[in-house]
């Protein structure tokens, strides 16, 4: 197949060696790239029970067949590993341009394994790989690291780096690229820290050979003009994700004070007009015509962001109706290498534990000055940061509050209140990496759109279909913000790889990829009992707005989950049944997972 480099770069950090391997093309044909191909390699290479923070865990940097081509919105890099936060399979994507540099350097995947004996930066320039001692960078924030490395080696290098949070093995440490872009969730930065890997710097000077360059260029231009730069996508440019604050507030699903409410009195201070008033510039990733990034300057910070998730979870959910404060929290997390979603989640949980008298963390909802001290304390595990660094699940085990511990499988909730979007509850519960909004995003159809949010009718099918769509789309490393159709993906992929592919085949691949993630988790002991939602969602009614009086009755949730398993061809215990595995070409892997 064209559009691939056909090469995997394997980097042994323990012995500081590297080697080139031939890409497994059979796997590429079944799992394509990004998320799916990363899952396939991880499943094959990790023994069950591998310690996420041990040398045997791997960090896979995965590009896709469109990476480095003119296909719109194809600039994302996927990072796959076993999560130290959840123990599940973890994939996490980051924008910017580093995916293109990896591909131009000649690689489809880079697999980092082992553990360096001392802090290092891995420097990749085309076929040259060097291990640079990084003792002088250890302890620095990601911004200083990027500036120092690009000053030394040139601005053409793109960098992935961690801050003190990753070094100190905070389980929700992220990886930063281009200062403000993050692979945020599940502790990908923690795995880097455990490997003594401070940064990866990449420069590539090659190209990508596609099957039919003229056709791919035509299709890419056509897509850009008629399917990307249109009234249905340009919200990403005009506003970007801060506009979602308005949607969530109107729909009553804006998480407020640790999910105690679905509307926030000060929402307008966090919404898109407030962000636009502070906006200095826009930014796009490689190959993107949309440019969703908002550079803003406020009295407290200059930052690219905050994105919706940060505004919701680290803003309204902490009772902080102050854009300057959220921007400063965001900038601090980016530099320290903390996921703003999980960081916001643990702060909100600590605030409610304090409010309820279960443990006094000395922080209350809306306390801006104390709130701004927390990221540094977490990243350095100092003061209350030592407790907050455990994450919401472990905090609840120690201090109580399991009823309102807003996490699933150990991953803190993103910014959508499921009591006003019942399909979102199912999406969170069945996402491979825990409470995650990237596996499926049904809020657009129900909470924001025209489908009834307060019923389970049709929701299992909706979530399943969206999960297949995202599983495949992210295996092509396409961005979430392009609402590309299956047919367009099939056309573009056919021109890139040189095969005649139909949408149905891609849909089957999406299902295969999603099921492979499930197999990984089943192999690690996960089952139906882990697909539950926090008690708050099924016990406490929301107090205001479009969701006033709403909760998810427990029998409705159970019925929705049961229907979902049946629709998927999974057992009552949430395991893919053998018939389904045969259908997806996963029977052998199912046996390896003990099925």
């Amino acid at each position, binding site marked *: 197949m064209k559009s691939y480099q056909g090469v995997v770069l394997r980097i042994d950090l323990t012995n500081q060696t590297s080697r080139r391997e031939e890409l497994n093309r059979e796997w590429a044909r079944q799992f394509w790239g990004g998320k799916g191909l990363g899952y396939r390699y991880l499943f094959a290479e990790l023994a069950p029970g591998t310690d996420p923070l041990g040398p045997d865990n791997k960090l896979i940097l995965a590009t896709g067949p469109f990476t480095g081509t003119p296909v719109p919105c194809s600039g994302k890099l996927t990072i796959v590993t076993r999560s130290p936060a959840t123990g599940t399979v973890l994939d996490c994507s980051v924008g910017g341009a580093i995916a293109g540099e990896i591909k131009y350097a000649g690689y489809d995947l880079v697999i980092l394994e082992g553990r360096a004996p001392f802090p290092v930066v891995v420097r990749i320039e085309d076929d040259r790989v060097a291990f640079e001692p990084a003792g002088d960078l250890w302890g620095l924030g990601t911004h200083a690291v990027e500036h120092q490395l690009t000053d030394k080696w040139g601005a053409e290098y793109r960098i992935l780096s961690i801050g003190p949070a990753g070094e100190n093995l905070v389980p929700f440490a992220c990886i930063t690229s281009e200062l403000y872009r993050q692979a945020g969730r599940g502790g990908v930065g923690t795995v880097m820290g455990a490997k003594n890997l401070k940064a990866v710097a990449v420069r590539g000077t090659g190209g990508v050979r596609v099957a039919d360059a003229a056709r791919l260029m035509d299709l890419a231009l056509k897509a850009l003009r008629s399917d990307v730069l249109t*009234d*249905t*996508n340009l919200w990403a440019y005009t*506003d970007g*994700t801060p*506009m979602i604050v308005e949607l969530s507030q*109107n729909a009553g699903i804006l998480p407020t004070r640790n999910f105690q409410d679905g509307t926030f009195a000060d929402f307008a201070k966090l919404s898109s007009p407030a962000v636009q008033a502070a906006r200095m510039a826009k930014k796009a990733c490689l190959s993107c015509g949309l440019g969703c990034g908002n550079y803003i300057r406020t009295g407290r910070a200059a930052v690219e962001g905050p994105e919706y998730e940060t505004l919701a979870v680290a803003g309204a959910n902490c009772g902080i109706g102050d854009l300057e404060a959220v921007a400063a929290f965001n900038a601090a997390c980016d530099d320290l290498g903390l996921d703003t979603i999980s960081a916001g989640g643990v702060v909100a949980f600590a605030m409610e534990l304090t409010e309820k008298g279960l443990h006094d963390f000395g922080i209350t909802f809306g306390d801006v000055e104390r709130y701004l001290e927390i990221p540094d304390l977490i990243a350095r595990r100092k003061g209350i940061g030592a407790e907050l660094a455990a994450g919401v699940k472990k905090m609840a085990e120690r201090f109580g509050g399991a009823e309102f511990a807003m996490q699933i499988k150990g991953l803190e909730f993103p910014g959508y209140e499921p009591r006003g979007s019942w399909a979102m509850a199912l999406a969170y519960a069945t996402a491979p990496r825990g409470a995650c909004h990237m596996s499926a995003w049904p809020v*657009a159809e129900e909470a924001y759109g025209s489908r009834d949010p307060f019923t389970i009718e049709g929701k299992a099918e909706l979530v399943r279909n969206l999960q297949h769509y995202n599983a495949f789309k992210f295996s092509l490393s396409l961005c979430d*913000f*392009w609402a590309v159709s299956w047919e367009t993906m099939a056309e573009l992929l056919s021109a890139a790889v040189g095969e005649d592919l139909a949408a149905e085949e891609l849909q089957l691949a999406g299902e295969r990829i999603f099921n492979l993630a499930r197999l990984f988790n089943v192999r690690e002991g996960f089952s139906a009992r882990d697909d539950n939602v926090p008690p708050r969602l099924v016990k406490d009614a929301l107090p205001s707005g479009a969701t006033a009086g709403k909760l998810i009755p427990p029998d409705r949730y159970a019925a929705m989950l049961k229907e979902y398993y049946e629709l998927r061809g999974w057992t009552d215990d949430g395991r893919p049944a053998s018939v389904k595995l045969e259908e997806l070409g996963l029977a052998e892997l199912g046996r390896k997972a003990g099925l």
Partner: protein
Amino acid sequence: MRLTVKLWGPLAKYAGAGTAEFIVDVPAGTTVDALIGLLGVPAEYVLMAAVNGTKSERDRVLRDGDVVHVLPLVAGG
């Protein structure tokens, strides 16, 4: 009756020159859907209409003084 309307994001262009937020007079009995039609906004581009700060059904009959926000399709999250 008189309404305050705001068209969000790429829908702002349907407000014509000037601002995305404006005042409009419409006949009594106008519904949310009818308002969207009167403004020339293609219905398929609208994800949500909100009246007075809360998501609204499209067949809702508007009242004098209502504040109507019309929000475009979004993807991702």
